[in-house]
C-alpha cells in the first residue's frame, strides 16, 4: 500500500512499486486529465507537479511520489481559474486539446519561477511538450498573457 497526496487529498493505492505514476492517476484513481502520449518522457502530455517541480509522470515510479505532494491538472486551481487556464481560454489556444493539460502544467512551473518570461525563456521551458496540432504560437502568447494576469492579480492584493 502506497500513500499518495494528490491535489491536497490523500489516497492509499495498492499497486506495484514500479508502476508509473501516470497509470496510477489514470487507471487507479480516475484522474484522466494527465495524458499518455509516448511513455518515454518525450512529449510532455503527462506533465504533473511533484513537490512543485514539473515531472513526466509516465517515467516517474509511483514509489517516488509516496508521501510527496503531487498536483495534477485537476488540482492546479480549485475553480479552474489559474492565470494560465484563463489565458488559454482567452486566446482560444486548443485545437484537439490532448496535449494542453501537459502544456499548462509545464508552463505553470515556468511562471512560478519566472514572473515575466521572454520568448526565449518560454521556448526553452516548453521544448519538452509536443503539440501535434501546432498551437505553439498561441501557447507562447497565452503564457505571456498569463504572466500579465498573474502580475495584475498580485498588484491588486
Amino acid at each position, binding site marked *: 500500500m502506497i500513500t499518495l497526496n494528490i491535489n491536497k487529498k490523500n489516497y492509499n493505492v495498492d*499497486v*506495484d512499486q514500479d*508502476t*508509473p505514476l501516470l*497509470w496510477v492517476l*489514470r*487507471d*487507479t484513481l*480516475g*484522474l*484522466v*486529465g*494527465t*495524458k*499518455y*502520449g*509516448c*511513455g*518515454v518522457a*518525450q*512529449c510532455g*502530455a503527462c506533465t504533473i507537479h511533484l513537490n512543485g517541480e514539473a515531472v513526466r509522470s509516465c517515467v516517474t515510479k509511483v514509489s517516488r511520489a509516496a508521501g510527496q505532494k503531487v498536483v*495534477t*491538472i*485537476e488540482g*492546479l486551481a480549485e475553480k*479552474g481559474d489559474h492565470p*494560465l*487556464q484563463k489565458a*488559454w*481560454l482567452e486566446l*482560444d*489556444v*486548443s*485545437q*484537439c*486539446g*490532448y*496535449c*494542453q*493539460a501537459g502544456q*499548462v502544467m509545464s508552463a505553470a512551473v515556468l511562471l512560478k519561477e519566472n514572473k515575466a518570461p521572454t*520568448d526565449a525563456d*518560454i*521556448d*526553452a521551458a*516548453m*521544448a519538452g*511538450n*509536443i*503539440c*501535434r*496540432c*501546432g*498551437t*505553439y*504560437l*498561441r*501557447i*507562447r502568447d497565452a503564457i505571456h498573457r498569463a504572466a500579465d494576469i498573474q502580475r495584475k492579480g498580485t498588484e491588486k492584493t
Partner: protein
Amino acid sequence: MTKPFFKNNLPKMTDQTNSMNRRSFLKSTALAGGGLMISFTWLSAFKSSGKTDPGLPAWAELNGYIKITPDNIIKILNPNPEFGQNVMTSLPMIVAEELDADWKDVVVEMGPHDSLKLGPQFTGGSNSVRMYWKPLREAGAAARYMLMQAAAETWKLPAEELTTHAGMIVHAKSMKSGKYGEFASKAAGIPIPKEVKLKDVQTFHVVRNSKKNVEGLKIVTGKPLFGLDYHQEGMLIAMIAHPPAFGMKLKSFDASETLQMPGIKDVFTQKLYEEGFEQGGFDTRTFNDLLVVVGKTTWEVMKARKKLKTEWEPAGETKDTMGGGGRKREIVVPGDLESTGAQLEKMQEWASKPAQQLRRDGDPETAFKHAAQIIERTYNAPFLAHNCMEPMNFFAHVTDEKALVAGPLQAPGWSEPTLAKLLGLPADKIEIQLTRMGGGFGRRAYGHYLYEAALISKRVKAPVKLIYTREDDMTYGIYRPMYTATYRAALDARKNLIAFHVKGGGIPEHAVHANRFPAGTVDNYLAEGWQIPSNITIGAFRAPRSNFNAAAEQSFLDEVAEAAGKDPIDFRLELLQRAKENPVGKNNEYDADRYAGILKLVKEKSGWGKAENKKYNRGVAAYFCHNSYAAHVVDMVMRDGQPYVERVTSAIDCGIVINPDAATNMVQGAVVDGIGNSFYGGLTHKGGAVEQKNFYDYRIIRMHEAPKKIDVYFVQNDIDPTGLGEPPFPPVFGAVANALFKATGKRFYQQPYIPQLNATPRAF
C-alpha cells in the same frame, strides 16, 4: 442503430441537401425528461459554455439538432466527430445563426452516431462545414419558423407580423416579446415547414463572429473527453502484439510467463478478417493475425506483453477481398520485406517505364523537341506517420445481443457496416459513441482498431478498452504513401512556358492530380502516373496527395520562374491570367480568379519585394485543394547553420469563414505542421520493419522551431464555405523549400529537408 449514410464516397457538394433524409432529420418530438442524454452522462457531466445544467428539464426537441427548455436553454447537438477542427463550436454556430439564437443561451453536446437523425457524421476531406452548411442552416431556420408559429398561436397574432432577435420573438406593433423557451414546447407540435427561407448572409451575427471553443474549459481543466479517458466499471485493458515487420505473421507463441503476471486474464490469437471476408472501401488493416493480451490495468498489460515469447515468419503473398464501391474484387498483397533503399531503387526503375496517361493537351512531345530550354527535376518524399497525440484506442462491450463501442473515430458510418458483419449483429444493435479525438489527420478514418477492440470484447465476454502504445501506433500505422514525381518544363526562346509534363509514382499510389494548376495554363501538357504494390498499409494523411504535389510542383515552378527570369508570384499570375482568358483543355478543377486572388493577397500582405523584408529568405507557394485556395510567404533566417522560419504570411480563400479566430488558429496550426513535416517528417523501413519507434527517433516540430508570427488573411466573399482543415497544409512544403533555396543557395528535392542540408544532392 442506423443505416450507413454513405459507403465509400463523399457526398457531392450538390447532393448535400437531398442526401439527407429530410423528414427524419427534421423530426420533432416533445420529450419529457431528457432521456437522450443518458447514454452520454460520462461526457455531459461537464457542461459546455460554463452553463449550469438544470438536471432533467423538459426538453422540447424541435429537430435532431435542437432542444430547448422552458427556461430558454438551447441545446444544439454537434453531429460531426471532433478532432481539433473545432466543429463542436462551428457547426452549432451555423444552427444558432439561422435559429437566430443568442449564443450565450446555447449549450453544445456531441451527438451520438445516428446518421438518420444527424446526417453523414464524417470528419475528413475538409468536409465538415461543406457538407453540413445547408442542412444545418435549414435545421435552424425550420426551428425558428416553428417557434414563431407557436408564438403567433399563443398571442393570437399573425405570424407574418413577428420577428426574432437573439433568441427573442418580438411583435413590434404591440411591444410584445418572449424568449424562445416560452414557446418551445408548443413549437415541437408544429408541423415542420416544407420550405424555409434562409437568412441573407450579410445579416449574420453568430457566423463570421469569433466564438470560443465550447470545450475550452474542459480541456484546460483535464475533464474526461477523449477515447483514452473512456471508462466503464469492470472494464479490462487489451493490447496487441503485432508482427515486427510488414510482410510477417505469427508462427508460434508461448504465453506461459505472461499469464503468470499479475492482473493478466487471457492471451489469445485473433484474426481481424477471416479469409474471404469482404472488406469495405476504407477497411484497410495493418496486420491480420493479432496476438492479444488482456488484463486489469494498462501497466500490467504493458509489462506482461513484454514477456511473450513469439516467433514470426514471412507471410508471403496474401489476398484481401474488397467489397467497397459495390464491386467485389481480390487484391494481391505482396509478401516482400521492404526496405527504404530498395524502395527508392524500385521507384527509380519504375519511373523510366511507360505509365498511365492521365491527361494530355496539345502535342507535348513536339513542344519539348523544339524547346529552347528544358528543365527537368525529380522530387520524392517518404512515408509519414500521423502520430496523433492520442494513440489509437477504442472501448467495446460486445454481448450476444448487442454492442456498445466508444472512442475516437472519424467515419463511424464507414465502420459500422463492417463492424456489424464482423460481430454478426444487425446495425441497429450497435451503438457507437463518439469521443473527442486527440488528433486525427486522416488516421482515424480507418476503423480497424475499433474492430479489433470489438472482437476482443466478444471473445473475453467483457467490456474492454484496446490501447496502442506510442510504439504500436507508430509501427503499425496507416501511413502517408511514399511518393516521387518528375517534372519537365519547356521554355521557348522568349522564356515562355510552352510545355509541361509531370510523371508521378509511388508506393503504393501516385499523387498526380492531373486537372489542377498548371493544367489549363499551358498549351502542351502531359500528366502520367504509375504505382508499385506494397504490403505497407497507407491511407489519408492531411490533404492526401496534395501534401506531396504542393511540395514538388510549387518548388518546381519556383525553379521554372527563375529560369524564365520572372518573379515567382508574377510568373504564376501570368499563367493564371492565361487560364482565365483562354483556358487549355477541359475539366480544370480550379477557379483561376480565386487562385490569383490569394496570390495577390499574400503579395500585398507580406510586403513582397519590399526593402524592409530583405533580411529574410523568402519563399512563396500557393495551392488549391478541397475546393479552397491557400498561399503562404515563408520568411526564413539561418542561425548556427540551421534554418528557422521566423514569420509566415498566409492568404486563404475558403468562402465564408464560420468562426474567424478558430479558423485562423487552424491555419496557423497547418503552417506549423507543414514546417514540421517538411523539415523532419519521415518513416523508413528495414526488412519490412518500421525503423522509428517513438518521438526520440521520429522528430516532431517543437515550440522553439515554430515561427514567432503567422499572419492569416481570409479573402472576404459570400461564397458557400469550402474546406479549411487541409488546404493551408500542402503549400507550406513548397514555400519552405523555396525559402531554403534562398537561404542556402541549394534546391531541396527530397523530403524531409533538414537531413538534406549538408547532403550531396541526388536524383532520387
